């Protein structure tokens, strides 16, 4: 089994565990899923709804629908794929309700984070985008650049390259436990730096 498949399976297992707990009556487990996916879903739905305030309304509606339909979720697909479909349908209904036309073509789930609703790559270099990204993301980049070498390498291999802990341990020639600790320390420093911006 490849490492990426292993990562995906672990991620999927966590989601299923949370879904299972919600299905058994633990509503709080749903909060964990909301915190995990609210930004990711909002980012994807920006392909359909370009107004950022409206997007969060649709995301909220999508999560509420997801909670109501959760007894029907049988785990044939990953939770996020299922949520994504609910989100896209909710976004289309929202657009239609406002007498606008939904996009002709759906965005593939794998490309959704990087494409707009018309199948074009999202514009990342426009002045508006630069203005939006210049704070938190920029601050994070700057913070990572200033981290001690071993923390910087660990967090970059994890976040930018998608390496798992075993791979990072091999590259950095250190135990997996050290990798886990370095990544956590890097995130802790980043978290402290961006706290005033939130």
């Amino acid at each position, binding site marked *: *089994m490849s490492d990426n498949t292993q*990562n*995906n*399976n*672990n*991620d*999927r*297992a*966590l989601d*299923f*565990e949370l*879904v*299972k*707990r919600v*299905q*058994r*009556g*633990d*509503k709080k*487990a749903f909060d*964990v899923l*909301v*915190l995990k996916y*609210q*930004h*990711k879903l*909002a*980012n994807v739905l*920006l392909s359909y709804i370009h107004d*950022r305030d409206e*997007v*969060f309304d649709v995301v*909220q509606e999508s*999560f*509420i629908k997801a*909670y*109501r339909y*959760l*007894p029907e979720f*049988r*785990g*044939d697909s990953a939770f996020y794929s299922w949520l994504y479909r609910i989100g896209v349908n909710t976004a289309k209904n929202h657009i239609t309700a406002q007498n606008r036309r939904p996009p002709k073509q759906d965005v593939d789930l794998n490309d959704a984070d990087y494409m707009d609703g018309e199948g074009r790559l999202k514009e990342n270099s426009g002045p508006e*985008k630069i203005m*939006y*990204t210049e704070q*938190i*993301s920029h601050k*994070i980049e700057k913070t990572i650049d200033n981290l001690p070498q071993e923390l910087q390498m660990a967090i970059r291999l994890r976040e*930018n390259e998608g390496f*798992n*802990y075993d791979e990072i341990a091999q590259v950095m020639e250190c135990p997996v436990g050290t990798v*886990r600790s370095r*990544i*956590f320390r890097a*995130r*802790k420093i980043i*978290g402290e730096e*961006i706290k005033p*911006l*939130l």
Partner: protein
Amino acid sequence: MKSDNMDKRELLSALLDGQLNVEDSQQILDELLKDDELLSEWQNLNLINNACQYKMDDTLLKGDISKNISQALENEPAHFIENAVELKTARTTKVDWHNRSILFKSGVGLAVAASVMFVTINLSQLLTHPAGNPGKISSQQIAEVKKEALPVEQYSAPAYVASQLSESVRIPFAHTATFSQNDEVSRQTVSGRNNSLLDKKKHYPLSEDKFIELKKESFDNK
């Protein structure tokens, strides 16, 4: 106590990356669902992860609708499902369908191959013997051959040799046929077509011993 909390946060960070085993995952999830501070840490970790991986802009990252959703769901009844979802890995499902597909394809393939073979054989028979039904050996012919064949020693020979035994007796579909050393028909055939046999040896090789024996026999007959 502080160090204990630090350990939990570190576990949470590893949980986000999908790098914990099942037991540790269950344990930290139990803690996460009880501890609001840990839940807030979970939120920060996800935010950093989203910012790094998807380069999300501030308006998205600053937006937080989790409380709104939580409030909206307060009036919703909790679910109590007997058979809650169980993890079905994509790999297992894929393998199942893959196997089924292979079985189906090979079944269809075999059926097609068998049909083509059947048609080819019938056609070839029809073309070589358009007037009759040559593939069928009459019981009389079998009886004649049996009568003359004394079972002293038996050899196995390819279809070509078998076809030389008698022009009138044809054994369809046979790749090999047995004949007796004392068979008069076979003796005549082998001796009469010695050169032909030598030529065909390249294509239908007998074992060396058998070949020498047959050759010697044909020489004796002369």
